[in-house]
């Protein structure tokens, strides 16, 4: 089954298993392609668009594209990096993200990408949407100001029958990720922790849990996101 294939990312010869998703295949070769909605072990959804690369000249998301023999991939280019930075900015201005006051600060992937792509001030105007902090569940708090609608919780947090704890509501710019009241009322502490961990930002928080890691020891305190792949 695992046929090895060769492909090229920004001139670098790479090798991986045929059909593996490009984000993972690149990782095997020490190449970092930024991701946000992708999560190891979950079926990719391609919703944040940050991992967009050019495969044989065409735009495609690396998290959903399987690698094949001879693919030529552009990843670290001025054009792609600029749009990635734009996407990060879009996510910042479309919500209400106040990093210093956020429990996930230092462990937040959106914040880490902001640093990695050297976002100073976003080019877009802030939307300042009015969003609620939904603290009506026994185990978790759903902080809608920080949700980036990546669908990781929707895809990853399910009960034993495969029912989703989280889902989208509405459409377009009014979309929200909301939680199921019935399932939430029976959510176990472990499931709640899993939900918080699967969230790339600080939108799903376990109740009564605040800052417990000192600054300096958090995930992205000492090296930019992605360097764990590049310096392997």
């Amino acid at each position: 089954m695992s046929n090895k294939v060769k492909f090229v990312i920004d001139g670098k010869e790479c090798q991986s298993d045929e059909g593996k998703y490009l984000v993972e295949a690149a990782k095997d070769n020490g190449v970092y392609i930024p991701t946000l909605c992708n999560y190891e072990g979950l079926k990719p959804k391609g919703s944040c668009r940050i991992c967009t690369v050019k495969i044989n000249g065409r735009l495609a998301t690396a998290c959903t594209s399987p690698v094949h023999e001879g693919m030529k991939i552009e990843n670290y280019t001025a054009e792609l990096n600029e749009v990635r930075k734009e996407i990060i900015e879009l996510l910042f201005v479309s919500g209400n993200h106040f990093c210093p006051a956020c429990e996930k600060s230092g462990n937040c992937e959106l914040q880490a990408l902001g640093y990695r792509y050297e976002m100073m001030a976003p080019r877009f105007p802030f939307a300042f949407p009015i969003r609620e902090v939904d603290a009506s569940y026994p185990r978790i708090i759903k902080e809608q100001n920080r949700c980036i609608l990546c669908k990781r919780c929707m895809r990853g947090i399910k009960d034993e029958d495969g029912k989703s704890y989280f889902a989208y509501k509405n459409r377009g710019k009014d979309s929200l990720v909301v939680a199921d009241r019935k399932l939430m009322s029976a959510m176990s502490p472990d499931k709640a922790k899993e939900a918080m961990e699967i969230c790339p930002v600080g939108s799903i928080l376990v109740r009564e849990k605040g800052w417990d890691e000192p600054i300096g020891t958090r995930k992205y305190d000492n090296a930019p996101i992605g360097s764990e792949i590049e310096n392997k």
Partner: protein
Amino acid sequence: MKTTVNKIIKKYKNDRYRLMDILLDIQEELGYIPEDLNQMIADELSISKVELDETISFYHFLTQKPLGEYTVYLNNSVTAGMMFREDVKKTFEEQSGVLFGNVSSDGLIGLFDTSCIGMSDQEPAAIINNVMFTNLTPFRVKEIVADMKEGKPVEEMHKQNFGGGKNSSDLIQAVVKNNIRRKGPVLWDPYEPGEGLRKSITMEPGDVIEEIKNSHLRGRGGAGFPTGLKWEFCNKSREKERYIFCNADEGEPGTFKDRVILTEMPKMVFEGMAIAGYAVGAKSGVVYIRYEYLYLRKYLENTLSELRKAKLLGRNIAGKNGFDFDIRIQYGAGAYICGEESALLESAEGKRGEPRDRPPFPVEKGFKGKPTIINNVETLAKVVKIIKKGSTWFTNLGTQESAGTKLLSISGDCRFPGVYEIEWGHSIYDILEMVGATDVQAVQVGGPSGILINPNQLPRKLGYEDLGTGGSLIIFHESRNLIREVVMNFTEFFIEESCGSCSTCRNTPFILKQKLEKILDGHGVVQDIDDLVEWSKNLKFSRCGLGHTAGNPIITSIQNFRHLYEKLVQRDRDYDTGFNLAESVKESCEASNRSTVV
């Protein structure tokens, strides 16, 4: 209510995949989907309640609360605006005493906006309790609202004759007009139901695919993918269970030709599906049709029955042993994005109409994960004629790269709006002469997702060599305010219709709209025009065609009408926040009887 809902769910065997039908049936029965039954419905379908809410809240026409005994959906597309929609809207509000977006306090009348309903050649138009009303004027609105207050059934409110052709048949009875202005050589070639099918079964299935490939027929919905190739890809799949879908979700504003085809020649469309079924060995077909065309349902269902009786659908079709194929009709519930083929499949599976990641393509993994061919209404109708008369006959029409004919939907400022079947290769200039349009300032080719061209570009030709299009042409007279009336309307359309899945398409159009407002309000500077172009670029990173093209109204209007933008921006300054302090606090100043010092 509970029993009714339970009965409906049982009718669909608690099948989660039939959620659209379940929800539409509940709404038809009760007028809305009572929210307190959501948990019960979810439990019956073995999904969580939020998964159900997710689907309901996605579709424009699904509602969780009563929207009035009479629910008015007034189209807000650009052509409606050009035909004095504002006056109609105002009259509705004045007469019913309720503002758009609301239901009157007595629960009698609800007024709502809706995206293009496929009536651009007879605007302003509205759907009231699933009955189509066209060519509305303030006078007519007064009569309609008076009828509502008397409790008259909507079917009895019409004062016009029913429209021509099948529109006045017993099963439709709609005032909708076909406005067939030009009968072309393909769709109006004399037709005998079964003529294509009977010929196809004398051929090997592979030869049918070959014939379609040789005809160079390309998808008539707008994307222009070679039809024969699509069939061949599907046929190559190892999976034997396959599906044929007809995409009748035409939602591109300014497009209405599929409505005319489905009204006048539905048998040809269904026959095209059966031919596709024969070619790739599919046993079932689904027509995914937009909710706006609900008034055609009885007629289309009856047409399917007639075809079954004539042995052109069902088992052993046309006497061919083992050739089984049948079709069912799947209604949507109001979402432009469902015209995108993978979103269409998601919707047909009872989910939100969010496009899928590709690969895999629907021909490999489509409906319920099985290989699926999705073809446009017009494409399928043409298949019948190609099989009947041969691919050479077809390629002799049109141009080198664009074989055959195209059905155009023409609206806007011209004397004869309607549908025209023409051979590919005509210039836009020819088209304007054909439809009686003069003093043209601009033409929108291909709807909002297409391009806005200027008078210098009128020699450009319709065809895949230059302007490949699904056939929507909207004409704007020189008196129109292109940015305010057209570009703004289209941009709002894309904001309304984004599914919200991609970060780019969910957020960028709204930001562009704010920028556009800044320019229209007189606060713009030259940099704002450049920002509009630059900021639109991330839309190309979206998953689907809607996202890719959501910036087109702005990008192509700046490309071709930059002078209009330049006229609006301030030349004497290069920076303006767009924020006017005095204006922003005016109301509170008045209330407190104080003035500002700025």
